[in-house]
């Protein structure tokens, strides 16, 4: 069959079903909405990335010679706000989750497709407020907005940014609500809870956190905006307010938020390790349960961000021991993933490289988290670069690696094309090396006493900062490469078959890209997840 004949004979998929801007901006197809989110979060990743570049450039020298303190304070604040609220929190759920959750449950769409589209517009609206704040001069409170600096002393666009965060939180809530109802009510016949892929367990747990936690940051940012906008005292000590109450309210969400960021990535890793070992995840039920345990326990530990805030010693002790508890299910997952490799059929394709990278880097990040939860040690390293290194290990070495791994795994399904192997593996390696060089020295800087959010620093720490900035430049290159080959692949990459990896899972039983309604007929599930029988493996 000639190329033209084949193109004509192919049934329409969700990409070719309709053309034109309106068909995208008014779509209710979860797959198209996932692509809309892909574009939106990438824009914010680039913005956050530019701010990161500026930070690392400034920190090459101990003096503040690239920009003034005021500017630097805005730069690191906006780096944090952009990355956390507009990239890390939405990326995996709103891009990969939106695309895959309905397909993995065997449904035609999410439970509330219009709510899904609305969530994207809410995201864009929140992003617009925040972008406005950035362009109008930025905000300099740190992404944590501690009072009374943010309410009474800062001269920057706190209200606009606060409102941006407030608004975008609702996108998160809508996504979580959609996932919960979809997973509860729209599973295909035969798809019982313990036959769900671990990606779905992870997103279910994430959704629980999204719906329970996000409203609290909403009310917190609202109170912040009200206090500042109307000049009334809620957290202002001069009027009898309590600035530490702000910290409690803020961290009550923002700690669970880190599990919103990492649980979906863990879900991706489960899929990758299973697919690229061609066997079921070892201890499936324990991994599923661990996701839910992390979600629940994650709500009990917020005070570990406040050990030196002036709170009681006893409160600190309780939060410390609870924080130890929440680390256990994460450890369980790491061991189960490693055990999955035993007697597997392991392939080192690009997605697997990201998964293995995640396992190593998240282990380091998580262990340093245990160190931070240890009271006597935290007093010394709180608010130093040790903390900065820790959260970049889990957020970047963890979440972003999970995001990229999932993107590379499902790219053939999403786009119908394959990307070049060599460049994708090279990029993964460059990212791994660049990442470690950027952030490992920061552990050392932190223990030696380098505080966070510092524009200038003592000369004796310059060498470590130079290493870190060098690493950042390598990391940047590593991130740019996929942008090129992924876009290239959309036009010139070889067409992908239904199942290029020979993986198990409902998504691989439909075409690449899938048709608008995902399946020609509703699948009926009769097997456990990740069932691999030698004679049934078909690659292509």
């Amino acid at each position: 069959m000639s190329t033209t004949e084949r193109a004509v004979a192919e049934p329409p998929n969700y990409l070719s079903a309709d053309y034109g801007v309106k068909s995208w901006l008014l779509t209710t197809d979860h797959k198209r909405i996932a692509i809309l989110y892909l574009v939106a979060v990438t824009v914010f990743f680039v913005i956050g990335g530019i701010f990161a570049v500026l930070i690392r450039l400034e920190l090459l020298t101990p003096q503040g010679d690239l920009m003034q303190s005021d500017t630097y304070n805005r730069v690191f604040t906006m780096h944090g706000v952009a990355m956390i609220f507009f990239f890390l929190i939405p990326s995996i759920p709103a891009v990969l989750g939106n695309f895959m959750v309905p397909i993995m449950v065997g449904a035609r769409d999410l439970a509330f497709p219009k709510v899904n589209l609305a969530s994207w517009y809410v995201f864009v609206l929140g992003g617009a407020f925040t972008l406005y704040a950035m362009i109008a001069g930025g905000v300099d409170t740190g992404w944590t907005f501690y009072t009374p600096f943010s309410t009474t002393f800062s001269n920057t666009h706190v209200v606009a940014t606060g409102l941006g965060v407030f608004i975008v939180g609702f996108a998160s809530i809508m996504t979580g609500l959609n996932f919960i109802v979809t997973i509860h009510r729209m599973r295909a016949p035969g798809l019982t809870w313990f036959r769900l892929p671990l990606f779905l367990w992870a997103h279910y747990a994430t959704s629980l956190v999204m719906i329970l936690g996000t409203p609290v940051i909403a009310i917190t940012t609202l109170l912040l905006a009200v206090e500042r906008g109307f000049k009334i005292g809620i957290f202002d000590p001069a009027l009898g307010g309590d600035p530490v109450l702000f910290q409690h309210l803020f961290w009550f969400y923002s700690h669970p938020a880190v599990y919103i960021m990492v649980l979906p990535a863990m879900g991706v890793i489960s899929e990758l390790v299973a697919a690229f070992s061609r066997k079921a995840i070892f201890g499936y039920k324990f991994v599923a349960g661990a996701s839910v345990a992390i979600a629940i326990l994650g709500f009990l530990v917020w005070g570990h961000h406040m050990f030196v805030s002036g709170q009681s010693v006893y409160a600190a002790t309780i939060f410390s021991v609870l924080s130890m508890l929440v680390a256990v299910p994460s450890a369980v997952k790491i061991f189960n993933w490693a055990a999955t490799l035993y007697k597997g059929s392991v392939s080192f394709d690009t997605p697997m490289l990201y998964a293995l990278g995640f396992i190593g880097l998240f282990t380091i990040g998580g262990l340093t988290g245990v160190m931070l939860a240890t009271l006597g040690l935290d007093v010394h390293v709180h608010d130093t670069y040790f903390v900065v290194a820790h959260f970049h290990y889990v957020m970047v070495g963890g979440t972003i690696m999970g995001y990229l791994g999932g993107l590379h795994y499902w790219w053939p399904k999403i786009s119908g094309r394959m990307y070049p192997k060599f460049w994708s593996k090279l990029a993964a390696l460059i990212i791994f090396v660049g990442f470690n060089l950027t952030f490992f020295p920061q552990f050392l800087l932190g223990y030696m006493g380098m505080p966070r959010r510092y524009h200038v620093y003592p000369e004796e720490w310059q060498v470590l900062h130079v290493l870190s900035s060098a690493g950042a430049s390598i990391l940047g290159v590593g991130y740019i490469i996929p942008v090129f080959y992924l876009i290239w692949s959309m036009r010139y990459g070889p067409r992908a078959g239904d199942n290029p990896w020979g993986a198990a899972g409902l998504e691989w039983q439909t075409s690449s890209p899938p048709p608008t309604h995902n399946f020609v007929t509703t699948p009926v599930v009769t097997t456990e997840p990740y069932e691999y029988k030698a004679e049934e493996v078909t690659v292509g």
Partner: protein
Amino acid sequence: MASPQPLLAHHFDTLDQQRESASLGMWVFLITEVMFFGGLFIAYIVYRTRSHAGFVAGSHELNVMLGAINTVVLICSSLTMAIAVRASQLGDRRTLVRFLVLTAILGLTFLGIKAVEYQEKFAHHLVPGPHFAWHGTTPGTVQLFFSLYFVMTGLHALHMIVGIGLIAWLLPRSMRGRYGPDYHHPIECFGLYWHFVDIVWIFLFPLLYLLGRSEHV
């Protein structure tokens, strides 16, 4: 009277699945609302414990009579809403429309009384901000009380306005006979929302108006 038209969205397999999904969705949404107001309640309770005197003084300025009337108004509106839901389940179009309208009227009554209360506060310089004036002791914490009072009741009122707006959206469809035994979950789900907004007020009223009423300032 036309028979109600069942409307199955393309991504659902059965009307039952659609109804159950809508219902679960509304419950999950209400849970998020509980967390939303919950954060405010926590802030209020923490401050009240710390700054008892100022909060009692501020609370004494609130109009208990109007607050109590509003409570009765809202409870009645939940009754009318429940009747409306029942009517939609039975396909009783007239009753449904009547009681939706009654619910909206009661809601508007609530908002009207609230407006009167707000106006009173404004006249007595109790609105936090540059025009706040308190001639007793602990003006700082009294202002704090009123900040929380306005945010809490204001947010609640906003939810009521949204609710009344939704009634306006449901009314033409109800009048056209769209809801009946086969398809009435929009009314049911809205009923859940309305009852929730009522329950929030049931908490707000004692917390803001009643606690410490008998204490001497």
